C-alpha cells in the first residue's frame, strides 16, 4: 500500500468499518494496533504495582509540598551583597512590624513563651553589617509599616523602593546620612534638589501633627483641613520630582517651585481622597508655581509667604514623564510652559471625564508655544486627556499660544 493510500485510510472519517465481535468477547476484543482491553480482570503483580504506585505518589506529593513551601516562605529581611556594600532587597512583614529601621542587617528573633503574635518577636541588628543601599520595590505593597527610619550609611535609595506602601506615614533619615534627608517625613536627596518619596499615608501623619482626630471625607473637608493636610509645598531647591514620588497621595493642592525642571514618570499619579468608608475619588484640584527662592517649609500657610504665585506648571520646566499626571480627574487647569521639551506618553491620561454632557477636569490643554513650535517637541502617544465621545474617546482641544490664566 502506498504512503498516500495509507494516509487516506487513516484520515478518512467515512472508513466503513464493521467488526463481527462474538457476544462473549465484547469485553476482551483487541483492536489491531491498540492495547487490549482490561476490564474486571486481575492485574499481574497487582500488589507490587499498588505499592510502587503509592510510593511514587507519596514522593511526588511530598516533593510538591516541600518545594512550594520553600519557594513561598519569605524571610522578613533579605539582603544582597553588592559592589557598594549590602543592599536591602526585600522586606516581608511579619504582620506586626509597624516601624522599620533600615540601618544594619537585621533579623527577627522570637521570644519563647510569649504567645501574642503582636509582641512575641524582636528585631535583632548586626551592627557590623551596615546597609548601604535599598533596592527598587523592597517594600512593595506593604500595608503595615507606618514609619521607616533610614540610617547614616544608606547612600543609594531607589525612589521606587517604597512603592505602594499604603500605611507608610513618614520616612525619617539619619541626619548624618551624606546623600539623603527628610523634610517633615518626606524623603529628599541631601541638597533637596530631588523629591524622592511622599509616603502614601502621609496625610495620617499630618493629621496627628496638626491635631485632627479623624480623616475627613471629601464632602466634609474644611478650608483648614485642606490647608494643613491636603496642600503640599515642594521646597524651592527642588529641581526634580522623581519617579512615582507623589503617587497615591491625598493632596488637593501642590505648590511647585519655579526652578523645577523635571517631573518624572508617574510622579503625580492618581492622587486620591476618601469619599466615604468604602470608596475614594481623585483629589488633586490645582497645581501652583511659586517664585520665592527660599522656601523650606512644606506646610502651606499663605500664598504671600511663597512670593508671587501663578497657576499650573512652572516656567522653566523641561521634562514631563509618561503618566506623570494620570487619573487626576479633579485637576482643573493645566498650562504647558514654553520651556517644556519632552512630554511622555499618557502624561495626562484620564485627567478628564464626561458627566451630564459636560467635560470635567482638564477640558482644554493650554500650551504656551504656537502650533509650529509645539510640533518640534518630543511628545509621546496619547499624552492629552481624553473623554468619551459617542462610543469612542476624543482628546481635549489644544489651546496654542495661550496666555496663562491668572490665579483667582
Amino acid at each position: 500500500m502506498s504512503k498516500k493510500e495509507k494516509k487516506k485510510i487513516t484520515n478518512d472519517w467515512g472508513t466503513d468499518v464493521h467488526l463481527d465481535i462474538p457476544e462473549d468477547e465484547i469485553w476482551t476484543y483487541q483492536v489491531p494496533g491498540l492495547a487490549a482491553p482490561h476490564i474486571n480482570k486481575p492485574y499481574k503483580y497487582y500488589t507490587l504495582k499498588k505499592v510502587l504506585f503509592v510510593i511514587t505518589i507519596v514522593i511526588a506529593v511530598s516533593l510538591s509540598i516541600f518545594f512550594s513551601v520553600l519557594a513561598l516562605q519569605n524571610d522578613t529581611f533579605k539582603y544582597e551583597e553588592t559592589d557598594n556594600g549590602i543592599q536591602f532587597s526585600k522586606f516581608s512583614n511579619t504582620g506586626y512590624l509597624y516601624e522599620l529601621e533600615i540601618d544594619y542587617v537585621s533579623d527577627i528573633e522570637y521570644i519563647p513563651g510569649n504567645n501574642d503574635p503582636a509582641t512575641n518577636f524582636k528585631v535583632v541588628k548586626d551592627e557590623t553589617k551596615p546597609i548601604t543601599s535599598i533596592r527598587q520595590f523592597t517594600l512593595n505593597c506593604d500595608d503595615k509599616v507606618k514609619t521607616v527610619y533610614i540610617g547614616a550609611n544608606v547612600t543609594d535609595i531607589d525612589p521606587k523602593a517604597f512603592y505602594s506602601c499604603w500605611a507608610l506615614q513618614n520616612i525619617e533619615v539619619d541626619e548624618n546620612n551624606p546623600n539623603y534627608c527628610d523634610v517633615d517625613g518626606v524623603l529628599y536627596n541631601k541638597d533637596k534638589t530631588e523629591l524622592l518619596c511622599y509616603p502614601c499615608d502621609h496625610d495620617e501623619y499630618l493629621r496627628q501633627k496638626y491635631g485632627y482626630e479623624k480623616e475627613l471625607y471629601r464632602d466634609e473637608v474644611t478650608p483648614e483641613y485642606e490647608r494643613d493636610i491636603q496642600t503640599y509645598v515642594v521646597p524651592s531647591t527642588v529641581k526634580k520630582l522623581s519617579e512615582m514620588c507623589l503617587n497615591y497621595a491625598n493632596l488637593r493642592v501642590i505648590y511647585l517651585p519655579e526652578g523645577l525642571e523635571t517631573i518624572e514618570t508617574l510622579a503625580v499619579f492618581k492622587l486620591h481622597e476618601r469619599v466615604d468608608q468604602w470608596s475614594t475619588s481623585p483629589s488633586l484640584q490645582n497645581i501652583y508655581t511659586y517664585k520665592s527662592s527660599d522656601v523650606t517649609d512644606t506646610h502651606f500657610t499663605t500664598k504671600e509667604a511663597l512670593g508671587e504665585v501663578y497657576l499650573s506648571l512652572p516656567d522653566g520646566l523641561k521634562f514631563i514623564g509618561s503618566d506623570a499626571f494620570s487619573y487626576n480627574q479633579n485637576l482643573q487647569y493645566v498650562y504647558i510652559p514654553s520651556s517644556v521639551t519632552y512630554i511622555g506618553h499618557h502624561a495626562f491620561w484620564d485627567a478628564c471625564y464626561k458627566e451630564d454632557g459636560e467635560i470635567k477636569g482638564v477640558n482644554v490643554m493650554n500650551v504656551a508655544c504656537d502650533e509650529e513650535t509645539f510640533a518640534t517637541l518630543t511628545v509621546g502617544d496619547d499624552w492629552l486627556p481624553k473623554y468619551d465621545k459617542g462610543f469612542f474617546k476624543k482628546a481635549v482641544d489644544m489651546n496654542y499660544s495661550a496666555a496663562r490664566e491668572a490665579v483667582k
Partner: protein
Amino acid sequence: MSILNKVKDFGTEIKTHWNTPAEGKYVPYKEYKDVIIGVGANYTGSKVLEYIGFWSSCFLIMYHYKLPYLTFSVIGLLNMPLGYISALIWWYVCDNLGFLPKKAEKKVYVAYGLMALFGISTLIFDYSRLFNQSGWFITTLNSFEGMSATACFKTFGTHFLYTGWVGARNIFWRKKLIPKYGRYKYGLYCDVIPKCVMVILIGWLPVYNIADVATRVWVANLLFATYNVFGFGNVLEECSKRISPNLQERILVRSYPVKISHIFNSILAIILPVFVGMLRYEWADINFYRWIIPATFCISAACTMFLAGRIKERIPQPPIEKKVQIKFWDGMLGVLRNKYLLINTVVGLIDALGNGMLPFATILYFYTFRLSGLPYSLLVALISFAGTPPDLLSPYFLKKFSYKQIMIFYQLSRAIGNAIIAVAMWTLGDNLALCGTICVVVLFFMEMTKTVPTTASHDMNVRIADYQMYLSGERLESFAGIFGWFTGPITTFVGLIIPIFLLKYGFNSNWEILFFDGSRRNIVVVPIIVDTIGFFLMSIPYFFWDYDNRKQNLVMEVLKRRAEVTEKKAEEEGVSVSGGYIG
C-alpha cells in the same frame, strides 16, 4: 449542478430530516437549531462567569480586593494536601457516575460530613492559637505573603468545608439526575438557581472593604469557595461534542452549529465593554459586578435551561444498571495504560513553564493601548474573529492533516508568535503605536492558527475518553487526574518561578505598576521568552502520536457492540434500563 440547485437540495435535506436523522446519522436538524441557541446561551453564560474568579487577573480582585499576587499560590499550597486526598474519593465517585455500593456510599457521606463540620469549626474558632506563637510552624505561616497563621487555618478549613459540601452534593445529584439528563449536563439542573444568587451576592457583599489584608484574604476565599460550589460550565457544548457516535457528524456539529452558537458571545463581547465604558471608573467600577454581570448571566442562564433538555449526548454505553463498576485501583491502573494520556501529560508538564505569567493580551489592551468601551470591544472582536473562518474549514483541515501534524504546527506557530512579541516589546517598548501594532498583528495570526488545533484537540480528548472506555469499560475522565499528581512537584515549583520573578519588578496586588514602562517590559517579556521555549519543546511529544480515524472507528464499533449486547441481556433479564445508548 448549479449553486441554486445545491441550495434547493440542501433545503430539501433539512426539511426531510428536520425531525428524524438521515441514515447513518444520529442528529436531526432540529437539534442543530437547539445546539445553536442552547450552546450559545450556555457558552455566553459561562464566559460571563470568567469575569468572576479567585485569581489575580479578575477585575474584582484587581481593583477591589487588591490581594497580594503570591497569596493565591499560598492558598493553593494550603489546599494541596486535602486536595490530593479528596481527589481520590472524587474520582471514585465521578467515574462510577455516583452509583456506589451501599456501604461505600455511606462511608463516603460520613467522610464528607466530617470534613464539612471541621471546616465550619475552623471558621468559628481560631485553631492557630493552640500552637506556640513563637514556634517554627506559626512563624512560617505568618511569613506567607498576605497571610497570617489565623488566615491560614481559616483558609485550610474553608477547603474542608468546600470539599465536604461539594462531595456530598456530587453523589446526591449524580444519582438523582444522571439517569434522566446524562453525565454532562445534569449539573445545570441542580446548580443554576444557587449560582444566580451567588453571582448577585459576589458583587453586592462589600467584603473587599475589610481593612486587614489577611482577614480580607480568608473571607474572600470563603466567599469564592461558596460561589464555586455551584457550577455553570459550558456543559451543553460538552454534550454536543458527544452528540453522535459518527465522527464526521461530530465534527460537523462542532464546526457549524456550535461555531455559529458562539456568535451570541461575540455580540456580548462587543456590547459589554461599551456598557463598561459608560461607567465612570470603567472596569474598576463596582457597578460592573453589581448590575452588568448579574443581569447578563441570569438572562443567559434562563435561555440555557429552556433548551438544555433538547441537546442529547449519544455515547454508546451500557445502561447504568449494567455498567462496569470501577474499583478504585482498577481506575488508577486503568488510566496509566492509556498511552495518549501519557503523551498529553508530558505536553502539560512542559506547558507549566508558562504558569504564573500575566495575561499578555490584557496588559496590551489596558496598559499599553489604554483601551475601553467600543474600541476595546472592536479590537477584541477583531482578534477573536480571526479564528472563525479557519474554524469553519475545520472539517477540511482535519481531513487533510493528521492530528499529529496539526498539533506540531500549533506549538511551533505559538513559539514563533511569542518570540516576535518578545522582540517587539523588548526593542520598541516605549513606542506604543508601533510595538502595539506588531503585537496586535501577531495576536491576530496566532488566533487565526489556533482554532483548528483547538477543535482537533477537543475532538481528540473525546476520542481519548472513547479509547479509555474501550480499554477499561468506563471513560475514567476523573481518574485521569492522577497524571497531575506525578507532574505536580515540577509544575508547582516551576509555576512559582514566574510569580516570584514578577515580584522583583514591582508586580503585586497593585497592577498599576504596569503603567511603568521599565517594569512592564520585564514583567511581560521575560515570562513570554520562557513560554516560547516551552512551545518549542511541546511539539516533541506529538511526534509519538498515532491515534487515527481508523483506530477510532474500530473503537466505536467495539463500544457499540458492547452497548448492544449488554442492553439485550438486560432486557432478557427484565432489568430496567436507563442512561444507556446503543448508537
